[in-house]
């Protein structure tokens, strides 16, 4: 039997039509094994279908579709690992405009370091 403690995920929620500012919402994800932040977000989506996140993977850690901010630092969601029992804060990547929740708009970089979109 599996007695692993759950992963506590605090995710950023923001609906541009209803919210003036974002907020963090907490979810407990049961997992016996470590999960990537990207896999974790998909699990949160299963718990709450209104939560939005990108789900397409390149399996290489290179394309950047998974860019997010993890515990205050910009990161690749697909190669950042979270272990059972840990608490993690997941927010939108800092260099792009937010579309909804943790989904960012790659066509609207906020800083010079964000790539030019189109």
């Amino acid at each position, binding site marked *: 039997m599996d007695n692993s403690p759950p992963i506590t995920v605090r995710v950023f929620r923001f609906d*541009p039509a209803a919210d003036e500012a974002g907020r963090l919402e907490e979810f407990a994800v049961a997992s016996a*094994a470590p999960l990537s932040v990207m896999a974790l977000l998909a699990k949160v989506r299963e718990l709450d279908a209104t939560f939005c996140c990108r789900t397409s993977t390149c399996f290489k850690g290179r394309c950047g*579709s998974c860019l997010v901010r993890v515990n205050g630092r910009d990161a690749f969601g697909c190669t950042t690992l979270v272990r059972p029992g840990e608490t993690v804060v997941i927010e939108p990547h800092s260099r792009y405009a937010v579309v909804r929740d943790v989904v960012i708009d*790659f*066509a609207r970089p906020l800083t010079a370091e964000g790539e030019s979109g189109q």
Partner: protein
Amino acid sequence: MKITARHNTDVLVIGAGASGLRAALAAAEAGAAVILANKGPLARSGITLTAAGGMQAPLHPDDSAAIFCDDIIACGYGLADGDLVRALAEDAADRVLETERYGVNFVRDAAGGYTLSQFPGQSRPRNLFVRGGGIGLAAALAKACRSNPRIQIMDDFFITGLVRNTGGAAAGAVGLDLRNGELTLLAARAVIMATGGCQWLWATNDCPADATGDGIVYAYRAGAELVDMEMALFYPSVLVWPPSLKGAFVHYEFLAPDALDGNIYDNAGQPVLPKPLPVRDQAMRLLARAIKDGRGGPHGGLLWYVGDSPKGAAAVAAKLDILQYNYIRAHGVDPATDRVEVAPGAHYLMGGIHIDPDGRTTVAGLFAAPECAGNFDGANRLAGNGLTATQVFGARAGLAASRWAAENGGAGPDPAAAEAETARIAARLDRGSSGTDIAALRDRLRAAVQQHAGVGRDAAGLTRLAQLARETQAELAAARVPDAGVFNQRLVELLELENMAEIAGLVAGCALARAETRGHHIRDDFPARDDANWLRHTLAKRTAGGPLFGAKPLRD
């Protein structure tokens, strides 16, 4: 929900993987105005990104288009169309090298020549290797598209269906602009479908979650003929454990004696593959049989292992110091020393929309390019031919569509067709939600496809799958999701699942029709190859009464 935005163009390209990007460039370079629509962000979605980067071209001094041609036909067990294969083999060298013009780099040897390696089924060394793999290819082509003033990119844009003009020709599409939530009409004189495969249908696969086969079903709904939908290619060694690595793959080719000389072991420590290694379809059959016989590990897979390689730890670590294996390392697993649990997984769709050598489908004004197109591989595919095909047929479809657009069109989408598509989408929206558990329906469907249309199929299982696909379609017809404004991911997932359920029925129907075993299509109840009856494509065509399944002769 109503159409609140409209854009007009000459050529609409749906899907921005390697095929769609190349098609857009070809059409724009021929003078057409192009809209390139993609459901994810540009160069950040699609199967192309996952590609290792092997690309075939007959560049070796002992090689030729004719030898390449013969290899493709033999590898596909005679089921590829002759004229398409000739086009592929003859254009390959030019189209592959032309990618350098768009900024793609190939791995070169010390003398500056292209490194050409030889994979199973290739009778000459023919595999070039793109630096940065599929991501390198997509990124370079995407950059070329961005800087072409004739190409308008609309990404994060989910196409929901095609629209035709009153004469029945393809005249554009309706889509959801995810960034602003607007339902948008894209009116076009010609449409190129380049939406990739539907491997996400199978519970075990090594493709991104957006490989739901949307474009195949849209073309089918618009009347296009589909062929060989039963022909999914299964890669032998896709990771099934640990959970966060599910869907990545490890090379079974690396287990060869002249590579890392490892093996895949069963739960008693017995090697499952003989040496020299068999080609893909034979290798994956051996693995599937071992798993069926209960020789698998705790998570249903077999153990891929190179930790005891006679080449030594340093050589193994060096060979595996590449992106793909560093990705696995980031998940706490060291592929150089750990046992990795693998099983055959859906990797590539050989069937799809029927095309001619210029990408024409059976619907006027509608073209299709690579993985969603269906008749240039047959019952198996040579390594490295997937990416080459994106460039050859992408360019051909782009050129042919731009010509069609210049000579025809002007009629514009039939307003009634656009209205019908809008009504179909609007009907899925409600203030609340129907409470239908879409994720549960999805998981049930994917498990059934894996079980009944995976490696080893029979009439009873396929009939059950067809039934379940119909039931799922009926349950989804009652499903409603809220009108969530921007980035309505629930709506997209509902529409994708509807597409998947419809395709599952087509896969089951075609697999039932092909009463023989050939390449990756293994019928346990018809274990022999039957050239007398089945040197033909299976055919799926939409009729008012539902799908019609039959056969279609090969093109020569």
